[in-house]
């Protein structure tokens, strides 16, 4: 039997060999980082190993769930009764409001149908739960418990009962990652619901602050104005609340105004969220309608389709289907 040989060659002393090894590892790490930054390798690896990774997330989130469950279990009975009464009142109020809203919605729907059928997005929503783990050093991304296998795809809009929360940026087979509106890399086209003034709300990294820069000084805007999604750009459907203006000030150049906005959605609460489905096509010019056969108006017995009317083909790109 041969004696076990030493691993390192005697060319280098032990210390030199160690340093060389470190340099090799550093180079490897640097190459990985560059590749990942350019081609998104991490996502592919994460997707491939998702079967192993997602249970780890669930495991990491478990203690927080237990604490929450325990807190619920030990809540005083009196508190529960109080809360129950409050909720009952709130429910009555909400139901009354809902009934009124229902009528308005129906009427609105009919009017819209008459005006423009393209605005009719069959808005289906999917319920998702947040998995309570922290991704990366900032808290602007959240993980959801549904993924590609449940039909989630990148770009879906995430809302809660109060307003827009963010959008899906990465999907794994049974989980997905969403970026919140407060992420500094996130922007959403908005509109002041009172005046129709348009702008773009950027995240700031703070949980309770968005920024709408580059507003004209003469803009008709007040503290307390509600901002809703404008629907331009095609990613966010129009009309969802985004936030309330809390402060107005001149920007650094003095040429424009910027508005600070408090997000409408409750971003720091975990719980259930809705993912919107059946979004309009992403931004871009509408595909030219193929002109084949005789004009539709000549066809016997069929009314002209709205798709081929000139009004719809000249519509803005963002909302075209």
């Amino acid at each position, binding site marked *: 039997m041969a004696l076990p040989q030493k691993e390192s060659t005697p060319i280098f002393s032990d210390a030199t060999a160690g340093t060389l090894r470190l340099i090799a*590892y*550093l180079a490897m*790490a640097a190459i990985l*980082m560059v590749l990942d930054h350019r081609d998104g390798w991490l996502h592919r690896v994460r997707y491939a190993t998702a079967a192993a*990774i997602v249970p780890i997330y669930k495991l990491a989130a478990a203690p927080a769930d237990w604490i929450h469950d325990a807190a619920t279990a030990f809540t005083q009975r009196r508190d529960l009764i109080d809360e129950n009464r409050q909720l009952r009142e709130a429910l009555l109020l909400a139901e009354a409001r809902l009934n009124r809203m229902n009528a308005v919605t129906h009427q609105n729907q009919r009017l819209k149908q008459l005006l423009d059928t393209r605005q009719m997005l069959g808005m289906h929503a999917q319920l998702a739960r947040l998995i309570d783990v922290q991704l990366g050093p900032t808290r602007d991304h959240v993980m959801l418990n549904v993924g590609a296998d449940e039909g989630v795809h990148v770009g879906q809009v995430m809302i809660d009962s109060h307003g827009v929360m963010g959008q899906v940026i990465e999907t794994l087979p049974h989980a997905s990652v969403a970026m919140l509106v407060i992420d500094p890399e996130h922007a959403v086209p908005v509109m002041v619901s009172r005046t129709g003034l348009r702008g773009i709300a950027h995240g700031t990294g703070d949980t309770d602050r968005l920024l709408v820069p580059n507003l004209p000084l003469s803009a008709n805007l007040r503290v307390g104005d509600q901002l809703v999604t404008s629907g331009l750009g095609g990613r966010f459907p129009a009309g969802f609340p985004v936030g309330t203006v809390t402060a107005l000030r001149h920007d650094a150049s003095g040429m424009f105004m910027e508005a600070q906005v408090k997000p409408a959605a409750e971003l720091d609460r975990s719980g259930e969220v809705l993912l919107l489905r059946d979004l309009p096509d992403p931004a871009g010019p509408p595909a030219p309608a193929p002109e084949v056969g005789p004009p539709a108006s000549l066809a016997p017995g069929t009314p002209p389709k709205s798709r081929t009317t000139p009004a719809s083909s000249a519509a803005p790109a963002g909302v075209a289907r």
Partner: protein
Amino acid sequence: MNRVRTQGLAFWIGIVLALLLMLMPLPGAIQPLKPYWPALVLVYWSLESTDRVSVGLAFCTGLAADLLNGALLGDQALRLAVLVFIVLRFRSRLRFFPMWQQSLAVWLLLMNNHVLQALIRAFAGATPMPALSWLAPAVDAAIWPFVFLLLDDVNTRVRGKGAKAA
């Protein structure tokens, strides 16, 4: 043999727990102060045993952490490799430091780690880290004595049991 195997098991469980702790959320305000658990566990084991931790193992642990964190593949791998390299280089001195000096060393190590992280994020064009996170190495240094005692206790028990069984 058995002793080595049980110790190895304790080591791997420690690494996995550190990765889980890394993912676990803290209440919002103190989130940036979260200790960097994988680094603490790796430092302990590289001080404790000569052949358990190598730069390569630190690299692999970092890769696993990157995969879980989903930030930038290779980021933590690089940082942990550097950290463990420094610890192994000064191992013989660090081992016999009194506890407060060890804590200070841990603070320096993690401060270095933090500077590296800030540099990498700057190169990758990510948003800068919250200012509060610069206090995280101090938190690491503050809890280091407890982490050390806890891991040392587990280690001694495991070794004792393993020796008895062998």
